[in-house]
C-alpha cells in the first residue's frame, strides 16, 4: 500500500529560521503572557458578574416567593440566608473569596450547591455539544474544502447555499420542525427518533442504554450541527480560496501531483489555520451548552440550567453558570492563541 508521502509543510519550512531553541522559548514566553492576560480577563469577569447580576430588575427574595404570601419574618430570614442584608461591599468581597475557593453558593431555587448542579449537567452538555462540534467541524471542513477547491462549481453553490440557509434559520424553529418530521412523523413516515431528554423513562441497561442515549442525541445533534456548520464551511472555503492561487500550489501541480494530492497535502494544511482558531474558540462555548437546543429537546445540560436560572431568576445559579461559561471561553481563546502561535510560524516571527 501507499506509504505516506513527504511531510507536507511547505509554508512552515519556508518561513522557519532553522534554529529552534529561541523559538521554543518564544512560545513559552508568548504562552505566559497570554495566560497572564487570560487571568486578568477572568478577574474582570468575576467582578463584572457580581455587579451585572445585581442590576437585574426584581427583588430576588420576592421572586423566590413566586406570588405566595410570605410573612415579613420569612422574607427577612431568606434575605439573611442569602446574605442580601449585608452591605454591597461586604457581599462583593464575600463573593470573590468564595469564588476563588470554588464555592459558588447555594442555588435559591433548588436549595443545593451550585457547583453540584453544574457538575451534574456538565456530562450531558459535553456529550451533546461536543459531539455536535466534532460533526459540525468535520462536515464544515469537508464541504468547505470541496467547495473552495472547485470554486463556483455546482457542489460549491449548492453546499454553500444550503449551509447559509440553515445558518440563517432560527434554531428554535428548525428544532421544532425536525421534531415534527423525525420525532412525531409526518403522513406515512413514523416518528424515528425520541425528542425528549437524554434517555427513555424506562431506560434499558448495558449496551442497549448506550444506544438509547445515542438515539436521544440524534435530533438535538442534527439541529445543533445544521445551524452552526456553515461557519466552518465558510472559513475553510475562503481560506482555501486564498491558498489556491499561491505559488507553492502551482509548484506542487508542476511536480505532477494529482489534483487530489495537491489539495490534501499542500493546500488544506495551510488553509486549516483559521479554522483551527475558530474551533478552539468554539470549544469554549461548548461548555455553555446550546441553550436553545437543550430547551427544545429537554436535554439536561448546562444550557437548560442557565435557562431555568434566568427564568426564576436564581442569582447564585446564574452567577455560577455565567462564570463557568465565560471562564471556559477565555481559557479556550487563550489556548487558541497559543496553538495558533505554534502552528503558524508567521505569527511567531511577527
Amino acid at each position, binding site marked *: 500500500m501507499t506509504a505516506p508521502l513527504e511531510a507536507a509543510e511547505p509554508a512552515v519550512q519556508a518561513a522557519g529560521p532553522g534554529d529552534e531553541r529561541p523559538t521554543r522559548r518564544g512560545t513559552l514566553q508568548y504562552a505566559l503572557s497570554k495566560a497572564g492576560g487570560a487571568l486578568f480577563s477572568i478577574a474582570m469577569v468575576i467582578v463584572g458578574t457580581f455587579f451585572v447580576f445585581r442590576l437585574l430588575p426584581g427583588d430576588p427574595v*420576592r421572586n423566590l416567593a413566586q406570588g405566595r*404570601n410570605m410573612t415579613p419574618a420569612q422574607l427577612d430570614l431568606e434575605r439573611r440566608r442569602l446574605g442580601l442584608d449585608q452591605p454591597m461591599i461586604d457581599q462583593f468581597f464575600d463573593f470573590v473569596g468564595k469564588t476563588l475557593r470554588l464555592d459558588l453558593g447555594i442555588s435559591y431555587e433548588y436549595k443545593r450547591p451550585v457547583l453540584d448542579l453544574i457538575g451534574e449537567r456538565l456530562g450531558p452538555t459535553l456529550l451533546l455539544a461536543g459531539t455536535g462540534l466534532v460533526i459540525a467541524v468535520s462536515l464544515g471542513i469537508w464541504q468547505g474544502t470541496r467547495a473552495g477547491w472547485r470554486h463556483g462549481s455546482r457542489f460549491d453553490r449548492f453546499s454553500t447555499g444550503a449551509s447559509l440557509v440553515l445558518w440563517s434559520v432560527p434554531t428554535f424553529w428548525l428544532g421544532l420542525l425536525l421534531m415534527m418530521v423525525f420525532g412525531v412523523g409526518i403522513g406515512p413516515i413514523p416518528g424515528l*427518533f425520541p425528542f425528549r*431528554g437524554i434517555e427513555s423513562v424506562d431506560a434499558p441497561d448495558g449496551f442497549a442504554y448506550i*444506544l438509547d442515549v445515542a438515539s436521544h442525541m440524534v435530533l438535538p445533534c442534527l439541529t445543533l450541527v445544521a445551524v452552526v456548520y456553515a461557519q466552518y464551511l465558510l472559513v475553510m472555503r475562503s481560506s482555501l480560496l486564498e491558498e489556491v492561487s499561491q505559488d507553492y500550489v502551482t509548484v506542487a501541480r508542476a511536480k505532477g501531483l494529482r489534483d487530489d494530492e495537491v489539495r490534501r497535502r499542500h493546500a488544506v494544511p495551510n488553509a486549516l489555520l483559521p479554522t483551527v482558531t475558530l474551533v478552539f474558540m468554539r470549544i469554549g462555548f461548548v461548555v455553555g451548552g446550546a441553550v436553545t437546543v437543550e430547551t427544545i429537546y*429537554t436535554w439536561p445540560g448546562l444550557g*437548560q440550567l442557565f435557562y431555568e436560572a434566568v427564568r426564576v431568576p436564581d442569582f447564585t445559579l446564574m452567577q455560577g453558570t455565567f462564570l463557568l461559561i465565560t471562564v471556559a471561553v477565555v481559557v479556550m481563546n487563550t489556548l487558541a492563541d497559543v496553538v495558533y502561535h505554534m502552528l503558524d510560524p508567521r505569527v511567531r516571527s511577527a
Partner: protein
Amino acid sequence: MRKWFARLATLGVALLVAGQGTTAALAQDPAAGKKTVRVGATQSMDSMNPFLAVRLVSTSIHRWMYGYLTVPDSKTLQPSPDLAESWTTSEDGLTWTFKIRAAKWSDGKPVTAEDAAWTFNKMMTDEAAKTANGPAVENFESVTASGQDLTIKLKAPQASMLENPVPIMPKHVWESVTDMANYDAEKYPTVSSGPYIAVEHKKDQHVKLQANPNYWRGKPKIDELQVVFYDNPQAAIAGLKNGDIDLIGRLQPPEFEAIQNDPNIEAWNTQGRRAAYLQINHGATTTDDKPVGDGHPALKDLKVRQALHYAIDKQKLVTEVQNGLAKPADGSIVPPMYKDFFWEATGDTKVTYDPAKANKILDDAGYKKGSDGVRTMPDGSRKLEFRFTIHTDTPIEDKLAEYLTGFFKEIGITLTTVKLDSSKFSEETGVTGNFDIAISGWSVNPDPEEVMATHLCSRRPAPGGEGGGTESFFCDETFEKLYQEQLKELDRPKRAEILKQMQERLYTQAPIIAIYYPNDLEGYRKDRITSITPIPEDKGLLYGGSSYWPFYTVDAKATAASGGASGGGSNTGLIAGIAGGVVAVGLVVFLATRRRKSTADERE
C-alpha cells in the same frame, strides 16, 4: 490499509446486528405487563422536600404521595376526611381536635397524631420549614398529640381551618433532618401515606411513583405513575401525539387546538378554576395609607372604572382571544365551577357590554372629548391615556391588549401597552404601583379565602417598600369587615353568603374587573387510559385540579409482554436501529470505494 477497511466494515455489520439485537432488548420493556401512566409536565420539580417545594408540579406530586388532614370531596369539593377521619370544634372556634385514622405508612409503621403534630410544630419552630406553607400555621397557637388525637389551638377563629394545605410527614423518618433549608429529600423509596410512593427522580427528566400497597383507601389501579418533564409545551404536545406520554394538563388554547382532531386523544375541555382579571390602579397606597406609584388620577374615580367595565365586550374576548375556550365573567374572582361560593351579578348590578352607556357615564362625569377624540380630566389637566401592563412573551396577552385598546378607543380613552418580564411585572403591579391597568389572574382553591385575602389592606406593601402580596392595592372598610366575619363563621352556607358579598363588593367597586374564566384544557390518550375520574366528578378537572383523586382513580391498559402494545416505542427502536446500521454500512462502502478508486489512480 485494506485490513483496516475490512475491520471498519465488520464493525458496521456488527453495529447493525447489535442494533437489531437491542431493538429486541428494547421491545422487552422493563414495564412489560404493568399498568403505567405517564403524565407530561412543562415544569420540573424544584425540590422533593415538601417543606421547601413551591412549584405547582411539585405540590401536585406531593399530593399524590402524602396524606393531609382533610381533602376536598371528589363530588362536592367540601372538606372531607383524609388522614383525619373526624374532627370537633370548641364553642369559641379556637380549639380543633382531629382524630387521626389508623392508617399505615408505606414502610408499615402506623400513622399517629404524633406525625401530624411533629409536622406542624416543625413548621412553627423552624423558619426554613415555613418556606412552602408558612401562612398555613401562622394562626396556630399550639399543636399537641395524644395517641390518635391531634389538638390544634388557634390564636383567632379560622373557618378555612379544614383547607389546611400541609402534607403530614412521617416523624420517624424526618425528625433526624437538622438542616431543613438544605435538605433535598432525595431518598428512595419515600415513606408516604398517600396513594403513591416516589421511587426515582432524575432531575429535570422524570419522576417515577409506584402504587402504595398500604394506602388506606386501597391500592391504586395502576402500578406506576410517571411524571415526564418537557422544557417547552410544543414538545410536550408532540410527546402526547406520539404516545410518549399519556396525559397532559394546563394547556393553552393554541396547544389544545393542536390535539383536538387527533383520533387517539381525548381533548378535555371543562370549566376551569382560574379567573382572569384586570387590575386597576385606583390609587395605590402602602399599609400606612401613603400613596405610591404613578397611576393615572382618573382611575381613582369609580365612574371611570365603571365606564371601562361597560366598554369591555367580554364575549368577544372569549371568542377571539381565548378561541371560545373560556367563559365570560359575570361575576368576580371566584369561577362558577365552585358552585357553593360563586357569586353572579344579576339585575341592576350586572354590567353588560354597552359602549353608549360607558360614554354617557364619562360625559356626565365631565370627562370631555377633545378634537382628537380623546377625553380629558374634568379640570383639563390630563388626557385619559392609560398604560396597560402585560408580560413579555405571552401572545394571548398581546391579543387581549389589542382588543382592549379597540374597546377603550370607542369611549375616548387611549390605551398603550407596556410589556414587562415577570419579576419586573410583579414588582410594578404589586409593590411600586407604577401602572394604570394590568393583566392578572388567580387559580382559586376550593376555599376562596386565600384569593379574597389578596385584596386586604394588610396585603399592601409596607412603607419600606416590602410587598405583601396584594392583587389590587384594595383597602375597603366593608370588605375588611366581611373578611373578618367569614373567618369566624363556621356555618358553611352562612359563610358562603359573606364570601359572595365580598365578591359583589369587588365587582361594584372595581379595583379589579374580571374578564373571563379560562377553561381547564387537558388531553389524554384514549388508547392507553381506560378510565379517569375528574375532580369534581361532574365535569371537573384532571391534572389541573391539583388533586390526588384523578390519579388515584385512573386505570390504563397494561403494557403487553411482547412489546407490541407499546407500538410506537419499539417500532422507533427498530427503525432507528436499521437506519443507524444502514448509515454505518453506507459510510463504509462509500469510503472503501473512494479509497479503492484513489489507490487505483496512484498505481497508474
